[in-house]
């Protein structure tokens, strides 16, 4: 079931990203998105380990690029959907690999069900909040941008601290 869901989310992410670029009439990028989606699917099918990480990074970058290129109102929602689907695909790929590599003691179906439930909750909340945010126009002025910058700095230092902790 995990494999089927994985393929489904990759196809969904590729379709949303292609549609986002097509909506902005960025046809070369739409084709590139479709090709990337196909490569990700191929990588999954052939079990190439770095494909999922590359796929998530590429899809997020292409989604951000589609927003930067500008477009119609639906582009942002499609890009958001693409990022959510790509994130789900990346997560499911990791889960599928762990399950294939190590034998599960106890109820594997229960473990999968709990994982999927939480992933679904994160995806649903992301879409809900994202949709709500789209309805509210945010215009960044200097002060919020400064605060955001500060937040980024804090996040960066926190990430470095976390990386330096040996058991994390």
């Amino acid at each position, binding site marked *: 079931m995990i494999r089927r869901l994985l393929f489904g989310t990759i196809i969904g992410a590729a379709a949303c990203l292609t549609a986002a670029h097509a909506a902005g009439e960025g046809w070369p990028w739409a084709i590139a998105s479709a090709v990337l989606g196909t490569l990700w699917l191929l990588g999954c099918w052939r079990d190439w380990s770095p494909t999922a*990480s590359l796929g998530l990074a590429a899809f997020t970058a292409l989604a951000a690029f589609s927003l930067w290129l500008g477009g119609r109102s639906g582009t942002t929602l499609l890009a958001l959907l693409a990022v959510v689907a790509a994130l789900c695909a990346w997560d499911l790929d990791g889960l599928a690999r762990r399950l294939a590599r190590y034998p599960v*003691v106890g109820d594997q179906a229960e473990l999968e069900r709990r994982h999927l439930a*939480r992933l679904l909750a994160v995806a649903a909340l992301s879409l809900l909040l994202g949709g709500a945010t789209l309805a509210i126009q945010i215009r960044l002025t200097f002060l919020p941008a400064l605060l955001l910058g500060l937040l980024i700095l804090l*996040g960066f230092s926190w990430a470095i601290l976390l990386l330096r902790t040996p058991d994390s």
Partner: protein
Amino acid sequence: MVARFSLPGGLLYGLLLAAVALLDGRMLVLALPLGLYLLAALYYGPYQARLRATHSFSTDRAVEGTLVDVELEIENEGQELEEVLVVDRLPPGLELAVGRPAALASLPPGGRFSFSYTVRVARGGYTFHEVEAVASDLFCLFQRRLALSAPDQLLVLPRIVKLRSLAIRPLRTRSYAGPVPARQAGSGVDFYGVREYHPGDPRRWINWRLSARHPRSLFTNEFEQERIADVGLILDARQRSEVRFGGESLFKHAVQAAASLAASFLDGGNRVGLLIYGRSLDWTFPGYGKIQRERIVQALARARTGDSQVFDRLDYLPTRFFPAQSQIVLVSPLWPDDVPTLVRLRARRYQILVVRPDPVSLELRGLPARPEVALAARIAGLERALMRRRLLQAGITVVDWHVDQSLDQAIYATMGRTPLWTRAAGLEGRL
């Protein structure tokens, strides 16, 4: 597993940077799923992971070459762990036969799970030290690595082959009844001699033929007493006595031979001590019975070959370990410079038996059948035959053992009593 949070974290950071750089709020919308994903993982992270691991084996005393089931039980003594990966670190030398020494599970507080795998064991003592556990959230983004202490030992003993009773004849025996001829007249089975009749001798011991030839005199048969003896087993564990070829080890066969001989002597009621002569002197004090058998087998299970400048030759063999005029049994492929030491020991009136596992036959098994190989084997065989002759001349019994054949056969061919008619027909040793 590697820490996976860096990719979504990096992407989130990149999108935030892009939002600031481009002053575009829509980038924040894209960052939202990544942020929520990381937050969910952080919230359910394994902050207080406390686990306890316990090993158990299907048997405490395994015999080499057999399969042993290893069970690992993990108990959660801390918070709920959504996903925990447990990997058991196998001590070197154990070969995994069935299953995997790793498992993935989810553990509630106080919960426990166990998994098992099967290993094929080679002789030796194996110590299981640590179990590696990686606790993580369900998304496996944040991990906490734990090294769980689960010390346990598995002892793998050498295989013991049942041997027929060995006919040893040391000059001195102990005072208890046993299977070794004591060179003293008394009650026994084998005929020893004749003496004048003493009142009280059983009538069935009277030698009537001799008495008939000497009127007015009676003679009584005497039988050889049978007692137990002191046996000192020496296992040659010098590095140069080890031959490895095609995954086979000559030392492994030597250890098996020593274990089988010790078991055979102890079964006969004798007092047996063991000296492992290699990197150092590993001495198992002489003793009787099953406990001594266990001590010797455990010492042999841990026996390893090693180098030492002092014990490179047999010159420093500590004779004080062995009672005077007792039986010494040396298990060694033997080198030409060992012969003088053995001859000296024989001169001190020790009875010596040498069991020589044949390194030539072991190596020949894996070599191609070429003329030069055959010639080399012949030369090596001649050297060994010459050594054997020198030992036999000194009164030392030598059992040459081709490790392909059973030790019992090799010993019986050398030391077993063959029927008279085979000797008469010149068939001794061929049947």
